[in-house]
């Protein structure tokens, strides 16, 4: 009952029957403390994550849509930060521009949040002949938006975007799994991609840290142990 009242922002008569009336604060006011806290918590979380979207939509329209989202879609994840993810999907029915702005803002959050790989080979190590695999950097995000496919990547702690063609996005997705040189030779051998084209892509991506080289024993989720 209390849950429903807080969530739907409505007092329920039955609730007054179970809440202790303790002047000078009325029961209504006591419920309102929780109701207001709920609203503020969720709307602050969305406002913090989607400042560009708010700017694009204008304050009034943004406030209206976050209220609708909060009313229709209650949080179900134990981490409040994840509530924002659903908001992007919720905006899919809004104009394409608004959806793209929100989707990109969420990509920035994910790219910023991603951990740095623990084992990363330098180009010197690779030139010395260390065996290696190639994989997408954990901070790299790829998302198909209304008209384009966009990649976000992290370079020197800054987040950048890259619009990619369908063929390029196909190969970026390919590197979600770690790939060996033999895998790449196999692709070229089967004529799936020209050697020069692949080398060119890898060179560009490596420079931007969209991909990185890891030793074969490493796993992407390896982390520093204190």
């Amino acid at each position, binding site marked *: 009952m209390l849950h429903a009242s*807080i969530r739907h922002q409505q007092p329920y008569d039955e609730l007054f*029957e*179970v809440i*202790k009336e303790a002047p000078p*604060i009325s029961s209504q006011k006591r419920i309102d*403390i929780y109701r207001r806290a*709920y609203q503020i918590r969720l709307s602050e979380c969305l406002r913090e994550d989607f400042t560009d979207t708010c700017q694009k939509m204008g304050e009034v329209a943004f406030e209206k849509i976050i209220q609708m989202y909060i009313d229709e879609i209650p949080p179900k994840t134990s981490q409040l930060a*994840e509530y924002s993810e659903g908001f992007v999907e919720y905006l899919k029915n809004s104009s394409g521009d608004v959806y793209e702005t929100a989707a990109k803002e969420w990509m920035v959050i*994910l790219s910023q949040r991603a951990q*740095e790989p623990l084992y990363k080979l330098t180009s010197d190590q690779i030139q010395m002949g260390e065996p290696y695999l190639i994989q997408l950097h954990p901070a790299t995000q790829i998302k198909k938006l209304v008209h384009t496919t966009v990649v976000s990547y992290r370079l020197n702690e800054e987040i950048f975007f890259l619009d990619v063609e369908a063929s390029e996005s196909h190969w970026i997705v390919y590197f979600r799994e770690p790939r060996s040189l033999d895998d790449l030779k196999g692709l070229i051998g089967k004529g799936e991609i020209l050697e020069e084209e692949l080398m060119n892509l890898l060179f560009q991506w490596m420079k931007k840290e969209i991909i990185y080289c890891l030793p074969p024993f490493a796993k992407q989720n390896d982390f520093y142990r204190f």
Partner: protein
Amino acid sequence: MNPLFKDLGVGVGLRPAHRSIFLESPPKSVSWVEVVTENYMPWEKEGWGKSFQMLSRIRKNFPVALHGVSLNLGSVDTLDPHYLFRLKQLVNQIEPVIISDHLAWTGINGETLHDLLPLPYTQEALNNIIFKIDQVQNYLGRRILIENPSSYLEFKNPEMSEVEFLKQVLKAADCGLLLDINNIYVSSVNHGFNPKEYLKEIPGDRVGQIHLAGHSDQGDHLIDTHDAPVDPKVWDLYNYSLELFGVKSTMLERDEKIPEWSELEIELLNIGVIQNEFIKSNRTSDLASRIHSPSATL
């Protein structure tokens, strides 16, 4: 007899604003840190984040307490197995010195309000939360601490007081207490009870940690905002807790209007000063009582 919990000294609620200080030049003013568990747990889809990597590095220099807000122990919902799994992953990596959550519920039917909601203090609610704490402790293979929350409403016809409820939880679930002094003060104003009487009821051996924080005064009620320095009345209560329980691991929570580290450090140093004064005066009174006792030897 060995105490259930050892004194870790003075700690702080580590927030992102101060993380770089802990990474670059670990401060000497605190000997341990507490973090909000959910901010470091792996995400369902995305896995571990950079914040977890930073915490692992901080852990090298400081014991870490994991303080959760989403265990939802008081709810009639069953415990969320995904949450528990991720909590255990974090526990295995960080090896925290303390794991805690709240004497509260946060949602039902899989929905969460991301708030700490008050429980009805009934036998039924008591049995429910004891069962849940027991499940968590069995799953993690260790004792957890439960924090007394601040609250803004009470249910009619309680079968016991909050402190009685809390005592029974501690005993039956064999868990520890994270005693939040500010929460007791906030609730005492909001519900009109004597906070010292509340403290007197607490079994001292169960207190594993103490929280101090600031609140905001809304005229006819207080809100536990953690956005201000600790109120003088809360410091008084802290002093009283020292008389009752002795020195316990104590930390400062600050979640809003977070000041510069140097400013926060002044409050942290104050905790140490109060503790030392208590220890000194206790020694003096101990000495005095020994001088006046017929069997005293110096």
